[in-house]
């Protein structure tokens, strides 16, 4: 502890205390501008300059970062010398940024009304950047993202992003905007852009967010990739502000091994990559959407709040919905994706409901086979939806000579009237084929199951055993097994669950009796079989010099049986004798 004298007040403080803190504890106000307790004092505005007297020497220092070390230091926070300096600084600042509130306030406090100086760089903006550096410092010291920095020097100094480009390092924490004293920095929400929507881009990637507005449970999560704390160990500011102490940085993705008896595979589907079909202009033309994107637009918590809008913000005059993109197509998938007809009808209904637009359905066959589906189709016809039977050949951009906004021209053959048609619309919704997940073959290998030719997982039997697979204990349901709609998926999943539960309720599992067995009396321990078993069921008993097969590990494939040169191994259920007898039998006629 040391004693210092501030403006005549004797106070006792801890060594290394800054003058600002010391003055605060003495109840003396020192004006500050670039000072914040959140980060290390930057000390550039110099408005907090005070006079420090040690012995005979007096010097001007900044109160924000001057550490008091010597007993008996005398500080003058408002001497005439200091007043002159402060006034001059405020004159300089006020002459440059006359309308910034915080500058006006401090200027008034130190007694400056009108600057005597004319400033060539005068900026009338009340939200102008006053180069205090708060944003740079919080980003550097606290957030540790180092996104913002100063550019240029001298009077041309300004805040900038690296190379003036959008930074990938920015985690959109908003700290810079929070500490900006003039409101110069604003956090902007990206609007509804075609590119953004198509990439499923839901706005800037913030380190803490609620994945979607309808997320269950609706709680914020930390995005590990964007979180500075989890990436570098810095920041951690959210935990200091979270009163219930709910933030846990240690909860990370981890690999857990769980022993289970049965597995239900419901790995679902993906939609076909529409960019494979450039004739439909997806990703190239504005206002061409996939059905999932359109669904996103229809969502009341979606980017448009459920309003159907073209990219330019206008309401579409006509909407085309095109079925069977990539399904029922010799070039892509031969099968029918089953769900498109009905959701396309739903889209048509909603477009009719929410906009005055004309709706065109381009279909190959209308498959309204479910309960109540046909009725819905009839209703749609009554609503005046245009049904065109025929496959669309191309979608191109069309222009009107009168300079109106461009539209999309859908070219197709109407097979019902036998004519080639070109229909102008403002928006096109494509119904992409449902296809197996791109990594389904990996899943297949992991679980030793099979895929049907269309690459969906293969059930044990299409009629008699539609939810189990060739591997005992592994079941499938939903679109992983084949395209189906929600009711079908629910039904199949329920069936699979029932199958699993029935096995669980039994309490024990009957194991296939097909196993291999070593007859000790014939085994001479040549160890030929030892390396063969993929399940490591075969071990070598050094003492007895015979090989041994573990019943529980053996899956009964019989490879070792046929390999055993002394035929000491028998494969139960498939013994040499049985097979030879079978052979004899089938060849006897």
């Amino acid at each position, binding site marked *: 502890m040391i004693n210092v004298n501030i403006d005549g007040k004797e106070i006792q403080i801890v060594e290394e205390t800054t003058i600002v803190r010391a003055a605060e504890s003495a109840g003396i106000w020192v004006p500050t501008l670039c000072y914040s307790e959140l980060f290390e004092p930057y*000390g550039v505005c110099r408005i907090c300059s005070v006079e420090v007297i040690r012995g005979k020497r007096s010097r001007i220092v900044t109160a924000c970062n001057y550490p008091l070390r010597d007993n008996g230091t005398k500080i003058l926070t408002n001497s005439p010398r200091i007043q002159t300096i402060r006034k001059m600084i405020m004159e300089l600042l006020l002459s440059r940024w006359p309308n910034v509130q915080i500058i006006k306030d401090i200027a008034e406090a130190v007694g400056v009304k009108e600057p005597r100086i004319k400033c060539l760089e005068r900026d009338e903006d009340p939200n102008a950047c006053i180069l205090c550096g708060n944003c740079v410092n919080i980003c550097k010291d606290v957030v540790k993202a180092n996104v913002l920095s*100063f550019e240029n020097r001298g009077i041309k100094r300004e805040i900038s992003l690296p190379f003036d480009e959008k930074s990938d390092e920015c985690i959109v924490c908003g700290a810079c905007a929070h500490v900006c004293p003039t409101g110069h920095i604003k956090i902007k929400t990206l609007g509804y852009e075609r590119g953004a929507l198509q990439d499923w881009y839901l706005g800037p990637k913030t380190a803490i967010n609620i994945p979607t507005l309808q997320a269950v449970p609706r709680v914020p999560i930390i995005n590990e990739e964007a979180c500075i704390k989890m990436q570098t160990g810095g920041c951690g500011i959210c935990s200091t502000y979270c009163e219930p102490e709910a933030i846990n940085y240690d909860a990370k993705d981890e690999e857990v091994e769980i022993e289970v008896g049965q597995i239900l595979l419901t790995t679902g589907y993906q939609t076909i990559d529409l960019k494979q079909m450039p004739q439909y202009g997806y990703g190239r033309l504005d206002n061409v959407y996939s059905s999932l994107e359109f669904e996103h637009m229809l969502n009341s918590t979606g980017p448009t709040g459920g309003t159907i809008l073209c990219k330019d913000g206008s309401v579409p005059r006509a909407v085309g919905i095109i079925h069977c993109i990539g399904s029922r197509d010799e070039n892509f998938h031969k099968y029918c994706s089953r769900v498109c007809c009905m959701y396309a009808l739903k889209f048509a209904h909603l477009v009719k409901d929410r906009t005055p637009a004309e709706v065109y359905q381009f279909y190959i066959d209308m498959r309204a086979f479910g309960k109540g589906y046909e009725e819905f189709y009839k209703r749609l016809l009554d609503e005046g939806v245009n049904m065109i039977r025929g496959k669309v050949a191309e979608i191109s951009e069309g222009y009107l000579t009168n300079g109106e906004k461009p539209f999309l021209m859908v070219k197709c053959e109407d097979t019902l009237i036998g004519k080639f048609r070109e229909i102008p619309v403002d928006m096109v919704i494509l119904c992409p084929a449902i296809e197996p997940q791109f990594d389904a073959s990996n899943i297949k290998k992991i679980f030793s199951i099979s895929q049907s030719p269309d690459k969906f997982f293969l059930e044990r039997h299409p009629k008699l055993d539609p939810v189990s697979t060739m591997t005992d204990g592994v079941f499938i349901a939903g679109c992983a097994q084949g395209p189906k709609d929600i009711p079908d998926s629910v039904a199949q999943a329920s069936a699979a669950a029932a199958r699993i539960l029935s096995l669980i309720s039994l309490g024990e599992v009957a194991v296939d009796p097909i196993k291999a067995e070593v007859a000790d009396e014939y085994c001479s321990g040549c160890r030929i079989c030892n390396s063969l078993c993929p399940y490591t069921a075969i071990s070598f008993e050094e003492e007895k010099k015979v090989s041994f097969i573990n019943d529980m590990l053996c899956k009964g494939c019989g490879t070792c049986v046929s390999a055993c040169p002394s035929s000491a191994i028998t494969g139960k259920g498939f013994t040499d004798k049985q097979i030879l007898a079978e052979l004899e039998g089938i060849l006897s006629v």
Partner: protein
Amino acid sequence: MKPYTIQLMICAGTGCVSNQSFEIKEVLEKEIKKHNLQNEAMVVTTGCNGFCGAGPIMVVQPDGIFYQYLKVTDIPYLVEEHLVKGRPVKKFMYVPPKEEIPIPRMNKIPFFSGQTLVALRNRGMIDPEFIEDYIARGGYRALAKVLTTMSPDEVLKEIKKSGLRGRGGGGFPTGVKWETCKKIPGDRKFVICNADEGDPGAFMDRSIIEGDPHSVIEGMIIGAYAIENVREGYIYVRMEYPLAIKRFNIAVQQAKDNGLLGDNIFDTNFCFDIKVRRGAGAFVCGESTALMASIMGNPGEPRAKYIHTVEKGLYDCPTCLNNVETWANIPQIVLKGADWFTGIGTGDVTHDPWGGSKGTKVFSLAGKVNNTGLVEVPMGITLREIVFNVGGGIRDGKRFKAVQTGGPSGGFIPESLVDLPVDYDELTKVGSMMGSGGMVVLDENNCMVDMAKFFLRFTQDESCGKCVPCREGTKRMYDILYRITKGEGKEEDLDLLEELSNMIVESSLCALGGSAPNPVLTSLKYFREEYLTHVRDKKCPAKVCRELLTFSIDPEKCLENGHGCGVCEKNCPDGAIYGEKKNVHFIDSMKCGKCGVCFDVCKFGAITVE
């Protein structure tokens, strides 16, 4: 070693190199070969000779014949005359101003004879790219002495006793700095050589590096030994000195190859290594904290120095930073002893390290003197000696007006103080500073307001912009000075300038801002009248500020001497001159753009400027 009979020492400092000294060397060697003299004459490229104003320079040893202003085309003649026929060529020799007889020998030329060489002792004597040359001139003896016979404390004591003060500008006693750094606990410490010489017109450091890089390296090694726990050193050279960077790199490599840097130097357990860093082109990086930030890869901006760099510098470790010239002095002090060093200079440093200025100082002498170049003079020499003896007086017989010392941060010293002894304290007293050693001599044709504006323009441009006083204040000062030179100044501007200056000096973050207003303050102090003339009368007495000039034609001279020749009319870009041929011409002051072309073209002196 071949016993050459003649050595031709060609200056290969930046100044002379830019005047084709390398090409001259090539031609010289060719000519020597042509005359079959290659066994007798040897061509040596040296560092800066110092007399840069007269480059390219060649000194022929052993006779010490000094040749200046050489051209490639002169060489065949010179070789034939001097080397073959043995007749030194007078027309390439130095002729003192106002005289006709040339001075053949270098050491007889006042520019050289008036100097005392310590930091520059090897200039023109060694090839800086050969470590053997340096060793042959006594190099690395100081290091050997230190490592074998002295303890670190003894070295420190010797340096303290010598009273050496930082040559970079501040004049902080080197010994005290080392001692503080040594006392701060820490097992990782650094020494840094500041070679970011940014003052316009100053090139002392560059010349030392280019001419004698090993002296700096030896000084740093000794410093590292004395401070202890220093195993790493940095040399921070500004990017604009490519030759200096090259020579430093060569020297450091040679020192490493010879085991003078690295582990177990001279088989002792002392280890030390040096890295060369290139500056990124900002004046402010010459400031110690900004320099260290730059080495660490951060933006070169200064920080508050309430905690000194000797305590928390590079990578937050105790760091001792000294200027090139300071380091170059160290080996000599160690070798010849502190007493020899204190024998040169002013004051008494036995008790107070700030008590005097010892040793020599290198200045780059520029401006309106006859002999411009690099001079090393003992501390305490008067300005008069420097300007009139070493510098050979003012060019073209003009009147001496002032000296500006210390670079853009220094101040003006008027003629009245010309007998001022040059040392740290005297210069500070009159409002200027030693600085790194820039010395610009001004004559009656220099406008003080314009000069102040010139320096302010530099400082406000080089301000990093971090703190408000320096960023905003210097720009405002420049604006005001600009207005004054345009004739838009008001009297209260002078007060405002003073007020701004004081504020900037007192409250700036670093020394750049803290000293930037010096030119304005001193010019206001010593030449206030000149400012007032600008403001009140809208005139520039030195006839520099164009906006304040009036061009007119003396009708008598025009008619009598020139018979109304009309050349001025033809050349006026503004069409402001009119008049019949063979008649008097006139200038329309409204149209006159004040370019001065008429003044230049008139052969009869009929154009008057006021």
